[in-house]
């Protein structure tokens, strides 16, 4: 499935690049694109992996930028 997720408070462009790379490598993720300017993450995930992916993604995002609010 495709999900357009808002990453409110994403303020570090370098971090956005790191997040994109790390989340893109998670199992079940077909593609992950993060736009620093629009503060959005476009995620293509295998349906049944979605919840698991989101848990890992959340950790990756918050490790890099703790103040980001993730709105699915």
């Amino acid at each position, binding site marked *: 499935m495709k999900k357009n997720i808002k990453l409110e408070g994403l303020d570090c462009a370098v971090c956005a690049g790191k997040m994109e790379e790390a989340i893109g490598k998670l199992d079940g993720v077909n593609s992950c*694109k993060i736009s620093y300017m629009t503060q959005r993450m476009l995620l293509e995930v295998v349906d049944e992996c979605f919840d698991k992916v989101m848990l890992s993604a959340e950790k990756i995002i918050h*490790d890099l930028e703790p103040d980001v609010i993730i709105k699915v």
Partner: protein
Amino acid sequence: MTSKQRKTLCRIILAIILLAAGLLAGEGTTTGIILSLSSFALVGWDVLYKALRNIRKGQVFDEFFLMSIASIGAIAIQEYAEGAAVMAFYQLGEWFQGYATNRVRTSIGELMDIRPEYANVLQGEEIRQTDPYDVAIGDIILVKPGERIPLDGQVVEGRSLVDTAALTGESVPQELTVGDKAISGCINQTGTLKIKTSTTYDQSTVERILELVETAGAQKAKAEQFITKFAKFYTPIVVVLALLVVAVPPLVFNEDFSLWLYRALTFLVISCPCALVISIPMSFFGGIGGASRSGILIKGGNYLERLADVDIIAFDKTGTLTEGCFQVQRVHTEANTSSEDILFYAAAAEIDSLHPIADSLRQAYGKEIKRQDIVNIQEVTGQGITAQVRNHQVLVGSDRLLKDHHIDFTPVSEPGTIVYIALEGQYAGYILIADAVKKDAPVAIKQLRKLGIKKMVMLSGDKQEIANSVAKTIGLDGALAELLPADKVQGLNNLFSDVTPGKYLAYVGDGINDAPVLARADVGIAMGGIGSDAAIEAADVVLMTDEPHKLITAIKIAKKTKNICWQNIIFAIGIKVLVMILGAAGLASLWAAVFADVGVAMLAVLNAMRALYVQD
């Protein structure tokens, strides 16, 4: 400016004042040292904190850590003022980038502020205000003057002028009346309209456009991908170079350690690729946002980038370069009949015909035709019509019709449809009907050539001679005609071999019937996207209005954005390399390094913001 930004700015300014006071008090004096250190503490505590926090989470060598090392290193070799300056100006640079990013986000947010907040649904006599999401297909909604049309639909009552500028960039309002299609996102200006909705909100034009612009940032341009990769390697390389600078000369050549440590610190000061990582996505986002204000939707940075390097453009004919409707182009009369009479007899004989040709005849005549004037209408299938008009025997139709009636005439050969007319068995003249070329098409083609487009051709399903004639009028390089929709893809494929390596092939169509061609081209451009779901779906770039000259605006925006990006990439990397060389040679102080780095970041961001401003 947010309150958080204001606070940070105050803190930075205060730290710079303390720093200046420390310098005035004298760098070596106790007062000077205390002032510098307090400046450092004031402006640097959060950077130190973030550095520590990230190390605990396994993020080593990020910008916070490197800036901390650079400033603490400077303090350790008793360069207190420089240590504080590194931190203060680093923070100032970060603050500025954050501020600029917000500015760009907000101004594009405002551009895209076309989301309707509510809909007035009519239920019997009652009007109920609801969320546009809750309106069903077929509901009747009421839009008062000043309100935004919340959903697509058909006008069932009322007449009004509607402002479409937010969607099309077109400043002239459009008149809507019963039967017209109303597009969501437009603002109703003069009268109240009742609209029968034809979509749900999430399928409406306004929501699809918003969705498109919001996801456009994720389709990254090559330049953006390059920068992401570059950023990944840049910081580690700079850190390794700094380590070499601090280790090799003192260990191998027995040089003074603190001198080389100082030089190594200049490397760390410029170790953040921030100027690039921020300014490149910002230019593309700005370009896309600016374009959407002019009624040009670009689905991603990658398409914007390709648009700048388009080499060959293939055009669809009908509806793209021509108006897409048949019009009387010329009336030719034989000796004793006026052209108005010819038009009248032709239009009158065709009074009941549903053929598009008949439509254009009636439209060209333009006056009322009395029904009782016409009797004995007989349609000759595929050939034309015979009728008795005002007691005259009239023949209207193809050359076959006249020949079959043994009428003496000279057949003409001209691109378009020729309708011959005979009165009382005598040839009276002919009417040329053709699809009219769009007024701005020839000028647009000329300007496209000036922008460096090498070759422009037309793909058409029409007859070769018509296609050739249109291509010649407009000034194209050629026309591939008599193509079925499936042949168009093949026609486009043949063009790829002419594309200069590194350049791209664009196709411009109306999005109806040509989705495969739009998809096959490097850049598929659909024209007249407003209200056409197919076009918005299939194309990479959507020109909301159907004017060819919008294509020029789109290419200009793309070229400008691309230039800005490369200016920034060359400028920023150039300055950083220069600082490293001068720093290693001992010619650049920490002061110089920090000013160079912050300066580059600010200029790059200001340059990127230019992408937002579009001249038509």
